């Protein structure tokens, strides 16, 4: 059972994700992690600001349970099921990142340079995290879904709009990593 403490391989994770999608399908729901953000806005009163938030959020409460589950999963995974959390990425990737200034590459789960508590005191890294979030939130709602809704659920159902969205995701991601990172970092 030692393997459970190691990072899990893709052929375990991928099927597990598919399993979650089917469990949700079998209880009459869908697998999507970004519409919660819209629910949060509405819970905070955003329905007074725009029609988009004028929807029956209480009917979507089950999705908040999925969020809690994801949080609990992270908690259990990090505190009970892991011995060493350094992510063993490709050594070439590590050198690319070190050139950009990410010295924590290869020895951490998240880059300290952006995510440590000290980093939060830097306006630049705080701003970048906020900007990253803004892009994710705005983009996911505009595209009507994120990786779970489009790349996993939508493509599994052979939906063309999801393919367009996923191509968009990749264009964005590649542009950010290859063109913008060298400028930002």
């Amino acid at each position, binding site marked *: 059972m030692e393997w459970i403490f190691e990072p899990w391989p*893709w052929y375990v994770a991928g099927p597990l994700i598919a399993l979650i999608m089917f469990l949700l399908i*079998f209880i009459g729901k869908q697998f999507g992690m970004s519409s919660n953000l819209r629910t949060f806005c509405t819970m905070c009163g*955003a329905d007074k600001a725009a029609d988009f938030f004028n929807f029956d959020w209480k009917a979507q409460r089950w999705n908040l349970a999925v969020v809690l589950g994801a949080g609990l999963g992270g908690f259990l995974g990090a505190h009970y099921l892991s011995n060493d959390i350094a992510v063993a990425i490709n050594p070439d990737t590590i050198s690319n990142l070190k050139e950009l200034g990410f010295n924590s590459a290869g020895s951490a789960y998240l880059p300290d340079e952006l995510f440590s508590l000290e980093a939060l005191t830097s306006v630049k890294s705080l701003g970048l995290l906020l*900007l990253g979030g803004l892009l994710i939130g705005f983009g996911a709602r*505009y595209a009507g879904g994120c990786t779970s809704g489009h790349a996993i659920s939508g493509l599994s159902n052979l939906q063309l709009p999801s393919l367009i969205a*996923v191509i968009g995701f*990749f264009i964005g991601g590649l*542009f950010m990593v290859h063109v913008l990172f060298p400028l930002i970092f």
Partner: protein
Amino acid sequence: MYKSEAASWFRIYEMFQFQAFHMYGIIGSALVIGVIGIQLIKRNNIKSFYGEPIKFVPKEKGFTRYFVGGIIFGLGWALAGSCPGPIYTLIGAGYVSIIVVLIGATLGTFLYGLLRNKLPH
């Protein structure tokens, strides 16, 4: 997500550098099983646990919203190294700073709600 490292910023960067199969393996294997499973459900009219027929709502047709929205999302995905699901996973794992990303994402969603009537769909 945590144990497979799909929640790690480093893995997302690596994915966009095409320097490992890992993330493609996760998404790809989920997809293969997903496609097969959904086809099975459709062809055999499998019912949900509650005995109801399972309906798959097709996504609305369109191009701009998916393409442009997708690109914007992709930019954020690479910058923050995370998409909405892993954000909650990372909070559970104790990485408090990801809350900043969550706040950003909620704000971004709000901004979309305000602007959507002016955007091409």
